[in-house]
């Protein structure tokens, strides 16, 4: 992680603003609704409909939203995010300081905090956690297991070829932990607010063999800590996972160090079928669920439910793979594809309220966004003439799209695909459309460069420009095979240069410039849209604040 040191703060502030704006809007829409945590009754059970079962309860190994959602209620990190924003605020650490060179971080810890198992929370516990993360062995080092550590901190203690950002942790005294890094990074300390880097009870970690991940057969099995004994400091503690009934139950932590939770219990009820989730909400069986289908928003609002919309922190793009069809290496052909797409119409008919046409590969809240870029308008004639100019009037392309999936940036792949395919065909491009299940070959095919055109997107987990365009085009053997064109290498080099620029303002300018270049000179793919995801709740549920990072905590939630 040698890139994007200081952009985080700015991005943080920007997202924060959007969050507040969205909040204000949704607050207006729901007259009489209050987000004052002081209001609301004490007691009761909140039942939340989850689309899938949590994979485990140890946040460190978590990689998916369903798992994070549950873990987030039981755990806290050293830092947290102000509800509804991405602004860092104190959590288990009350304050922190960094040395001049940004490599030494001193955290002052909250006192009188106990884990759910009565273990004391102190500097030693913090260091125990850091060292646990850093010292993962065997299967614990797999990309599929410690994904967030690998993405944010790099390697482990015994992987010298893959250096880590993390160096050491010392407990200066009970309430002071000093974390040393190998390099300065603007990601600190906000990265510690990620649910993955929550602090677990050292006693429970040891007792329940927390690091014993085993690669078994074609998957991984996790130890008792992750399955039955998650132990954090959060406002709720683990009660049970009734697998036969598909219900996860958390109960209030009565010894919580902060404002105690109002709810007695949170129940996560697993309802994989989307329609079933909606009906369960309407029938009063559950109090809310995540990612309601955009088409259901109006109906849900009409019935008095609170559709809480998060800021659109994602992008959907039409991927172009230049490898197989040399004609796609011609900029004019790729531009023709962009002119052929009626993105305005697509956003209007297929995406939820608040969605917008993407002018570049990142939303406006990311540092380095180029606000001067305008979306190219729909112009099939221009597309045809560009194709003719490039001698590609008889262009035939393989267009793949995924089934068995919805993504926040892609609520209905089938309908979006149909719109895109229809537009392209109108511009005289012949398509061989085919689809594969998301997990059943689609991603593999895209990675292996089989289709010429494909639908994919990204939800940001980090506000640096590098998390977006760096991920997409930072290498030449990426999904777009930009290496097939001479500018691919150039672009990768430019991205690397920008991400290693230490000066924040300068770097930001470099990214603004790069975004323009990507859209006007390179066009490795076509950004389509940004689409806001939502969460729906019963109107009597209060104190749940939609977060751009989907970091919704139910600690201050109440019912009735």
């Amino acid at each position, binding site marked *: 992680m040698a890139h994007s040191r200081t952009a985080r703060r700015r991005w943080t502030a920007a997202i924060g603003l959007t969050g507040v704006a969205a909040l204000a809007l949704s607050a207006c829409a729901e007259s009489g609704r209050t987000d004052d945590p002081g209001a609301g009754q004490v007691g009761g*059970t909140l*039942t939340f409909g989850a689309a*899938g*079962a949590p*994979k*485990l309860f140890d946040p460190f190994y978590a*990689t*998916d939203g369903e798992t994070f959602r549950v873990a987030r209620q039981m755990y806290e990190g050293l830092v947290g995010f102000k509800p509804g924003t991405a602004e860092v605020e104190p959590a288990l650490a009350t304050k922190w300081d960094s040395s001049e060179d940004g490599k030494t971080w001193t955290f002052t810890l909250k006192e009188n905090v106990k884990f759910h198992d009565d273990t004391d929370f102190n500097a030693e516990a913090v260091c125990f956690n850091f060292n646990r993360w850093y010292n993962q062995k065997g*299967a614990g080092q*797999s*990309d*599929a297991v410690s*994904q967030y550590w690998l*993405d944010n901190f790099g390697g482990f203690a015994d992987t010298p070829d893959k250096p880590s950002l993390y160096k050491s942790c010392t407990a200066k005294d009970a309430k002071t932990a000093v974390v040393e890094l190998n390099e300065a990074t603007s990601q600190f300390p906000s990265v510690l607010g990620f649910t993955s880097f929550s602090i677990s009870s050292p006693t429970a970690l040891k007792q329940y063999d927390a690091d014993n991940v085993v*690669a*078994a*057969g*074609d*998957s*991984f*099995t*996790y130890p008792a800590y992750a*399955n039955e004994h998650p132990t954090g400091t959060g406002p709720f503690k683990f009660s049970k996972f*009734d*697998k*036969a*009934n*598909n*219900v996860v*139950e958390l109960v209030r932590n009565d010894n919580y160090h902060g404002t105690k939770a109002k709810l007695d219990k949170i*129940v996560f*009820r*697993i*309802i*994989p*079928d989307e*329609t*079933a*989730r909606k*009906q*369960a909400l309407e*029938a009063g*069986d559950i109090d809310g669920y995540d990612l309601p289908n955009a088409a259901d928003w109006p109906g849900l609002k009409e019935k008095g439910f609170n559709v809480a919309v998060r800021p659109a922190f994602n992008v959907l793009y039409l991927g172009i793979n230049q490898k197989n069809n040399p004609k796609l290496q011609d900029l004019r052909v790729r531009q023709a594809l962009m002119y052929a797409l009626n993105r305005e119409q697509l956003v209007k008919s297929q995406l939820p309220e608040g969605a917008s046409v993407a002018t570049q590969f990142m939303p406006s809240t990311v540092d380095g966004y180029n606000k001067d870029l305008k979306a190219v308008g729909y112009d099939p004639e221009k597309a045809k003439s560009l194709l003719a100019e490039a001698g590609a009037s008889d262009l035939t392309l393989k267009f793949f799209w995924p089934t*068995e999936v919805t*993504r926040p940036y892609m609520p209905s792949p089938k309908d979006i695909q149909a719109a895109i395919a229809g537009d392209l065909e109108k511009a005289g491009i012949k398509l061989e459309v085919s689809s*594969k*299940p998301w*997990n*059943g*070959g*689609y*991603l*593999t*095919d895209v*990675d*292996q460069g089989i289709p010429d055109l494909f639908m*994919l*997107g*990204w939800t940001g987990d980090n506000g640096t420009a590098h998390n977006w365009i760096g991920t997409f085009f930072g290498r030449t*053997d990426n999904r777009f095979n930009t290496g097939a064109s001479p500018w691919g290498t150039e672009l990768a080099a430019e991205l690397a240069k920008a991400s290693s620029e230490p000066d924040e303002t300068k770097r930001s300018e470099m990214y603004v410039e790069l975004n323009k270049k990507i859209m006007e000179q390179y066009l490795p793919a076509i950004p389509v849209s940004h689409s806001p995801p939502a969460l729906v709740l019963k109107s009597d549920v209060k104190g749940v604040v939609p977060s751009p990072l989907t970091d919704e905590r139910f600690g201050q939630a109440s019912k009735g």
Partner: protein
Amino acid sequence: MLRYTIRRLIQLVGVVLVLSLLLFAWLRALPGGPVSALLGERSTPEKREALTKQLGLDQPIFVQYLKFMGRALSGDFGVSTGVQPGDAALDIFLQRFPATLELSFLAILIAIALGIPLGYLAAKRRGGWFDNLSVAGSLLGVAVPVFFLAYVLKDVLSSALGLPTGGRQDAIDATRVTGFFVLDGVLTQEWDAALNALEHLVLPAMALATIPFAVVFRITRAAVLDVLDEDFVRTAESKGLTAPTIRRRHVLRNAMLPVVTTIGLQTGALLAGAVLTEKVFAFAGVGEALALGFERRDYPVLLLLIIMATIVYVVVNLLVDLSYALIDPRIRTR
């Protein structure tokens, strides 16, 4: 009898082995699978390759199969990648099987409770409007796609009857003993829990019952017609026995045989129907796991559940054959 049973069981082992090899090889030959499921859109070719290696998915198929069978012998059928990620496939089956049994049992009960009396009445009034109407109705029952019916039932009846729209039980405190929720409620005398679980069963069981109902109805009707024609009924009539007595003594009892058999043999239809019905009602049984497994390409779970479904189906068939042979000696000589 014993030899017959043993032969059938050996045959079953053969079927299971062949089936598991075929399924295994085919599933492994498919792209995606565990690696895609674990990495999602964050995958890069490198991560993919590393993980493939780590999980041993780069080895030849037969090596993988032997390893799989080795583990299977010790009860390890792999870990779910999509249905309940991280859970052992066998655990998923064991947790969910009671749910499906419970549901199928109620469905069969509904089918019998409606099918037999209606079939009997229709036969008695052969050719009348009641007969024609109920025959048409039973044919219609077969013509309606099960999942569509399930949705209609859910939409129309759940609010009208105040029944839950899905799940096995509300999140109430219930002690788990056997995994059969209704039975557990009765055993622990937690009547609320039992009633609640039963309420959750009603609608999916109704949807699932349509095809068995149609079959039971038609078989009952045909069987009763057959028996009414048979000599002993005519004899009984000539002996001057009254109609109710004939009905009770001869007709119904003789007609029961094929009906009972049919019920046993509806297992296959129930299993397939459960996949659709349980999905609609988010009912956490084997059927829903299969539906999710297909949707999320959860190969370990699919492999185990398909094999288990086959075993259940074959064993039920065997039991039916055996009971049939016991009841009707004529069969044994066939």
